[in-house]
Each structure stands twice: as C-alpha cells, then as structure tokens.
C-alpha cells in the first residue's frame, strides 16, 4: 500500500503520521510472540549439545551469539540484603547462547531484551575445566569458515628448497 498519508492539519507538526511498513505473511510468522522472551536454563552437557546444534544450523545463514557474564543469579534486593547481613555472595559465570531465529516455549527466566532463542548455564568453579575444554572444542570444530594464514604458501616453497638441500647432503656424507 504505497502512498503518502494525509497529515493532520489541526495537530502540531511533531504529530506526523508515519506509514506502518506492510508486513508479508512470512515476516508476521517471524514476529516474536510472548514466549520469545523466555530463556532456558540448562545443565552443562545439554547446553553444549544445543550450542553444537545451533552452530550446525547456522552454517548457511545466521549468527551465533555467545555471551559471558559474571552473575550471582540473585536479584539486586537480595544481594543488598546479603551484603548488609555479612554473607558472602557466590558469583558464577553465566553463559548465554542465541541464534536469533526461532522461539522456544519453555519459560525458566524472563529477559527484558529481545532475545528469541537462547540457552543459559550457570558454572561453578568445579565444573570449570571440563566445560572450558568442551566449549573450546566446540568452537574450534565449528569456526571453520575463518581464513587460514597465508604463510602456508610460503612454507611450501621453503620446504621444497630444504628437501633439495637434504638430497644433496647424503651423497656427500657417503663419499667421505
């Protein structure tokens, strides 16, 4: 529906009418429903499995966001109460992952930002090394689209020269 809208003359200029973009049926499907604001809190292994499938899904199109944040997972009011009571607050590393595509219906925590599909996991110091290792493995395995170093071409040329030198050396040794 292209066409300029008739501006209301009886209102001040800042009340201009703006044309609402006409959305196709496909765009309307992608619109987030209320469930989209949900975030699923998982255990480490299911989180890593879902992260792997997220990377596999977004090879042709899309991005994967992974956010690391320090969090006590407690509200500010409770944190203030704990500090005033003298209790030490245990902080953890919050890991969030999203691919910004589909919605998920399970509600574990609500977030104010417009995050569509996301998974969270809390880490304590004990599970650290195992999670770090698995996480690093997943990243290494899936970040294959990044460019390799150009030095390899130079190295190949260098190897060709050294091989020629090695061939020359043995006949000299055998003669002496």
């Amino acid at each position, binding site marked *: 529906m292209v066409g300029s809208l008739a501006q209301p003359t009886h209102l001040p200029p800042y009340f201009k009418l703006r044309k609402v973009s006409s959305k196709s049926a496909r765009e309307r499907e992608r619109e987030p429903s209320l469930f989209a604001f949900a975030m699923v809190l998982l255990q480490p292994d299911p989180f890593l499995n879902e992260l792997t499938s997220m*990377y596999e899904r*977004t*090879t*042709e*199109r*899309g*991005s*994967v*966001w*992974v*956010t*690391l*944040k*320090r969090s006590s997972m407690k509200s500010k009011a409770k944190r203030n109460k704990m500090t005033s009571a003298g209790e030490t607050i245990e*902080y*953890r*590393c*919050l890991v969030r992952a999203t691919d910004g595509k589909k919605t998920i219906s399970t509600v574990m925590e609500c977030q104010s930002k417009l995050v569509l599909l996301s998974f969270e996991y809390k*880490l*304590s*110091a004990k599970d*650290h090394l195992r*999670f*770090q290792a698995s*996480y*690093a493995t997943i*990243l*290494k395995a*899936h*970040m*294959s*689209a*990044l*460019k*390799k*170093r150009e030095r390899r071409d130079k190295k190949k040329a260098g190897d060709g020269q050294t091989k020629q030198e090695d061939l020359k050396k043995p006949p000299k040794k055998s003669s002496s």
Partner: protein
Amino acid sequence: MVYISSWDEFAERSIQLFRADPQSSRYVMKYRHCDGKLVLKVTDNRECLKFKTDQAQDARKMEKLNNIFFTLMARGPDVDISEVSGKEQSEAQPTKKGRGRKQ
C-alpha cells in the same frame, strides 16, 4: 563502539575494563559462518571495546581469552594467577627444552 585493530591491545583493555566493573561487564562473541566473520565485544554498558576478524589465528587467541574470562568471572576480578600461570607454563616449557646437548 570502538573497533580495536591490535589483538593484544583489545585483550589487555578488555581485561582492565572487566576488572574495573565486574558486575556490569560482559563479553560477547558473535560468529557468522556464512560470512566467515568473528566479532568480540567487551562492554560495561558505558564503554565498549570490539574486535573484528576473519582469521583462524585470532580464533585460537580468542580461546585463551575465553579461559581468562571464565576464570575471572567465576573466581573474581582480583585473580592474577590465571593469566600468569598460563603464560608461565608456556614460558617454562621452552626453557626446559633448551640447551640439553652434552658437548
């Protein structure tokens, strides 16, 4: 938003930024396989540091930074050992290997 061209500068400044305000700082990594691009962002909601790359070597450096941030966030911003132990280990190994020949 500031894109930093040097990896070392980005790593050092992002760790400083986190240490200054560990409560509100976060480390975000965005990867697009279709474009082959990796973007890292560290922000405390006031200042923002970003690093953009398409090189595989930077992915390896990023993994080390990931480990540093994991440790910082879990154990606290005052942990110096995490960076030092990682670097000390890498320094200790070459010194052991050197000059082992008997003359």
